[in-house]
């Protein structure tokens, strides 16, 4: 695994507090996330890892009663400042969800959905984007002859790779993955893990996972959350082999969670 220290920082979170109404979901979270590497968020359910992920593309904005204090800087810009355009942010920070959620459209139209949103109309250009994105998501060979078929005709694992391709089609810099393999079988999971290894050469990847072993297999850095706080944040190897906090050790050795 590559050493994270050599990489440049892309995301910088400082003293972030997040409330859903009166519920304090994230408490004084600070961390930096390096460019072109995989960072994994782990921790038991309800620990705030998905919430933090969703602050990075401001998907939490849509939940009524969400309040945020502190700073989230991406590429030196505080994404919660007024001049930030949320749609532009989300174009550059793509997301893949827990359940594959293709649109009830053809495979082609699923991929082309994003580029079309952002004004690409030319058929040739769209064709190229669809092919490129599907190739990057290692789905091209399987579907190239069936682009007009409904996305629902694909298997669950294929659907999830389609969703990854769809996210890549708008050319993001960052890819957020919210437990993207938890609904998949082991073989599909493995394919997506391999894919993540490929993609990290071009994209900064932040993933939430329920599965510690996945974090250990795939990520360069790991962050361990408990009750809305960051307990430990380190290179993956270090965190798993030599945790500095007792609670981290308890979690990774399976004593709770």
């Amino acid at each position, binding site marked *: 695994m590559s050493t994270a220290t050599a990489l440049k920082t892309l995301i910088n979170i400082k003293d972030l507090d997040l409330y859903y109404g009166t519920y304090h979901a994230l408490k004084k979270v600070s961390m930096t996330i390096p460019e072109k590497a995989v960072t994994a968020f782990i921790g038991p359910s309800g620990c705030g890892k998905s919430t933090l992920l969703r602050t990075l593309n401001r998907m939490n904005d849509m939940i009524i009663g969400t309040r945020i204090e502190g700073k989230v800087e991406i590429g030196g810009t505080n994404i919660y400042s007024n001049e930030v355009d949320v749609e*532009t942010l989300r174009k550059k920070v793509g997301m893949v*969800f827990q359940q594959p959620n293709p649109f009830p459209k053809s495979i082609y139209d699923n991929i082309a959905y994003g580029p079309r*949103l952002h004004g690409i109309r030319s058929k040739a250009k769209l064709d190229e984007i669809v092919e490129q994105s599907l190739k990057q998501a290692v789905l091209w060979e399987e579907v190239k002859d069936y682009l007009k078929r409904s996305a629902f005709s694909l298997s669950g694992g294929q659907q999830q790779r389609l969703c990854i391709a769809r996210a890549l089609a708008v050319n993001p810099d960052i890819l957020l993955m919210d437990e993207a393999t938890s609904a998949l079988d082991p073989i599909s999971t493995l394919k997506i893990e391999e894919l993540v290894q490929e993609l990290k050469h071009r994209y900064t990847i932040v993933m939430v996972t329920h599965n510690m072993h996945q974090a250990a297999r795939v990520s360069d850095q790991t962050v361990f959350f408990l009750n809305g706080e960051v307990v430990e944040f380190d290179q993956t190897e270090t965190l798993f082999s030599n945790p500095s906090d007792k609670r981290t050790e308890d979690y990774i050795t399976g004593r709770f969670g």
Partner: protein
Amino acid sequence: MTMFQDANRKQISNRRKTDLVLHLLFIVATSIGIVALMALLISIMMDGLSRLNWDLFTNYPSRLASKAGMKSAVVGSIYMVLIMAPISFILGVGAAIYLEEYAKKNAITRFIQLNISTLAGVPSIVYGILGLTIFVRGMALERSLLSGSLTMTLLVLPIIIVSAQEAIRAVPRARRDASFALGATKWQTVARSVLPSSISGILTGVILALSRAIGETAPLVMIGALTFVAFLPESIMDQFTVMPIQIFNWVSRPQVAFHELAAAGIIVLLAMLILMNISAIILRNKYQKNV
């Protein structure tokens, strides 16, 4: 005495009998509705089938029952629906999108929602009074096809709004999230993801609402759709009649020959409603597959 035969065996068997009697009673009661429907359909068929021929569609109304047809009424009904369809679709679906996707959950929204459900219960003849005052007189649209169509649009709007809201609400949240996460704005998400996912459900509601409008008589009597129209409307400002009005006119005559015409007219009207309902069912099945 065995374990399952206790002292009040008699009481239990009485209760069983009561259950049986009530069961029969419930079946009989349920059959009454079905029998009434059958009686209605059969009596209309028996009265009207003999008069169901091409003349009915090619002749204009006449003083002579033997020559009378409902050409102007059939055409008037179709024109009315064609004018209503786009207006009621835009207003109804627009309102539904507003309420489901844009409106803040506050007192004003609750008021609009309550208002829509009370409007659905206003007697149709009251809409006729409204149309007469606002469209026929207020806007000076006279007793025109347009006045009639606008009045009927207001009548069916609550039905369309409520069914469109249900269709929009049935679109999974994940599908909206997927769109937002790709950088879509609210309107882009609504137009490119939510509406395509809910369109067949919405159309089902619109068709059912339009079929309600096709069968309505009272509001159009109020705004003065004529009962004796021997021409086809050529513009939306022309006078007109519709099938239910023509049927009403024939029913109101004392002669049996006109009653037979009315029955034949009813068969045509019901056939048109069945056609619309079948298309709504087909759309609904398609819609259930998609969601």
